[in-house]
């Protein structure tokens, strides 16, 4: 019996197991699914009790994300969400990219050229993330006011880069630690410069690590609300802030509109994660699965 079992090894799951896993997956995915469904419902369908699972889909909510009808007549007025989506993409992408560049270089240093008290430095770097943002925000708000960075793109991009840096360094360091030092030594003996060792030997091995770090950073930045609320201006406002501002008003919460914004807001993160998923699995397991 034992022998047979062993021989089969990692076998394909049967239907029962697949359905069971699918059901559990659905429980986790249900809120997202519900939001996406709500985005396609009319206001009446969205508020119906008991909740409706079968309904006639409409794109009205998506249209009203970007345009609303003026009170005078039939003129369509932009709601500004086009800009807010651009802001979110631009700010998150720049912030993540900056954090990734600085974080990777710093992590290489920490991993390959440890300082005296290396672990202490790494710990100190992480402490900046141990305070609740609401405490950090007050001095930062004042600093931004003082330096005139309030409401500017570069201000919020720099802040997001700084915000992503600690765990970018930690994650990338763990990936660098895993690389074989022999390979780098071989490159040195083969006449490679230190820059060549980093760019031609180390970095190509870390595609998975970079992808995983980028996705983590992106998700955190993409959904960030507090800093964005206090530090962006009307031109640089990101979607989470703008979304919050749609709540309220004489009609109460327009759930359909909110769900449409969220649905659109999900697409870029979905897309990036989907594109990077092959790298991601190897990245997030932190080498616990032998390559």
């Amino acid at each position, binding site marked *: 019996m034992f022998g047979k079992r062993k021989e089969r090894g990692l076998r394909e799951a049967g239907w029962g197991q697949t359905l069971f896993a699918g059901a559990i997956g659905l429980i986790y995915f249900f809120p997202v699914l519900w939001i996406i469904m709500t985005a396609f419902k009319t206001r009446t369908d969205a508020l119906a009790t008991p909740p409706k699972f079968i309904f006639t889909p409409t794109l009205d909510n998506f249209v009203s994300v970007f345009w609303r009808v003026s009170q005078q007549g039939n003129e369509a007025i932009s709601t500004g969400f086009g800009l807010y989506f651009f802001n979110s993409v631009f700010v998150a992408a720049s912030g993540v990219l900056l954090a990734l560049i600085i974080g990777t270089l710093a992590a290489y240093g920490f991993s390959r050229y440890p300082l005296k008290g290396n672990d202490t430095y790494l710990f100190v770097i992480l402490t900046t993330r141990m305070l609740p943002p609401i405490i950090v925000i007050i001095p930062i708000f004042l600093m931004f006011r003082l330096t005139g960075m309030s409401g500017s793109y570069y201000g919020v991009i720099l802040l997001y880069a700084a915000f992503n840096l600690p765990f970018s360094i930690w994650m990338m360091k763990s990936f660098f630690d895993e690389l*074989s030092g*022999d*390979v780098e*030594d*071989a*490159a*040195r*003996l*083969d*006449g*490679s*410069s230190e820059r060549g060792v980093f760019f031609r*030997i180390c970095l*190509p*091995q870390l595609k998975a690590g970079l992808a995983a770090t980028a996705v983590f950073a992106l998700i955190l930045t993409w959904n960030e609300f507090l800093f964005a609320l206090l530090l962006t201006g009307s031109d640089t406002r990101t979607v989470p802030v703008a979304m919050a501002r749609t709540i309220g008003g004489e009609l109460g919460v327009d759930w359909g509109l909110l769900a449409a914004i969220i649905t659109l807001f999900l697409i870029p993160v979905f897309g990036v994660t989907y594109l990077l998923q092959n790298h991601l699995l190897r990245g997030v397991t932190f080498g616990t699965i032998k*390559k």
Partner: protein
Amino acid sequence: MSTIETSNLTKRFGDLTAVDGVDLDVAAGEVLCLLGPSGCGKTTTLRMIAGLENATDGDVHIAGRRVNDLSPAERDIAMVFQFYALYPSLTVAENLAFPLHAEKMTKAEIDARVAVVAGKLALGDVLHRLPNHLAEGEKQRVAVARSIVRDPNCFLFDEPLSRLDVELRMAMRGQIKEILSELSKATVIVTHDQLEALTMADRIAVMRDGRIEQIATPHDIFAHPKNVFVAGFIGTPQMNLLEGQLLRQNGQASFALAGQEVSLELHDAHDRLHAGESYTVGIRPRGLEPLSEAAPGSLAATVDLVEPMGAETLLHLQADDQDIRVVVDRHRVVREGERLHLGLAADKLHLFGQNGGRIEL
């Protein structure tokens, strides 16, 4: 000239002295094996020669030039690593071409060189694969090919065959030996496998605790081990090392070995031996001969375990709680529990003084 020289090479990590005053001298075309148990400092010595580790003290000369302050690249060395250290994100062809990029060659020259080494090591079929998709033996061949693609000053090998299975190891051993003799460069091979050292080296340096115990040709190191450590380390099965007091010396030297008095004919060594002192008598398992009856100079022991090894049989015997190993022809039938008289032929003996040093007989 392709030579490697180290003088008083020393490496300390804090309080630990990993390499302690190593003097080596490898001539052009010579293959020197650094052989020793793990942790004896052989790899550290190799890394200092390569420039991957800074020496705490002492000098490294390559091709007659002091290279202590040169980077690994400037030393113009090729090295094969234990775990191959292939560049994982580059194909085999790109791996082989990598060392040539630093030489400022044209693409055509690089391609030609890669084709030559790929042919030499039968890598033509795998040139476009990534290292992760290669078999162990292929990885090893890529590592060797990459080291010879350039024309470096000298070669360093760190446990080059330790990851291969027995059959591949034998094949690779021959292939590497062939390539090395063709290139005729100074070469240092680090290994803990004495068979590898004995077969591949022109000279072997046996290391222990950061020091070199003996440097000699494979023949000499086997025939004239300089001390008890080398005697016990080289040769399989291991040499029998029996400690005993010299009781008398009147034409014959009588030792108290394993609770028995054994008389040995030691020729002219007599005047250098002193009654009452302890000595270590070394004899290889193939140097002991089971006799049909007790004879002068024989040692009685009981057979404890019989291990057939194919052409020969290894016997483990006990004499006064001392383990004695004897190798006999496979045709000789021996039973466990049998009592044997072992003849110690004087010309096959090794004698070591109390400090472990060899006494020439």
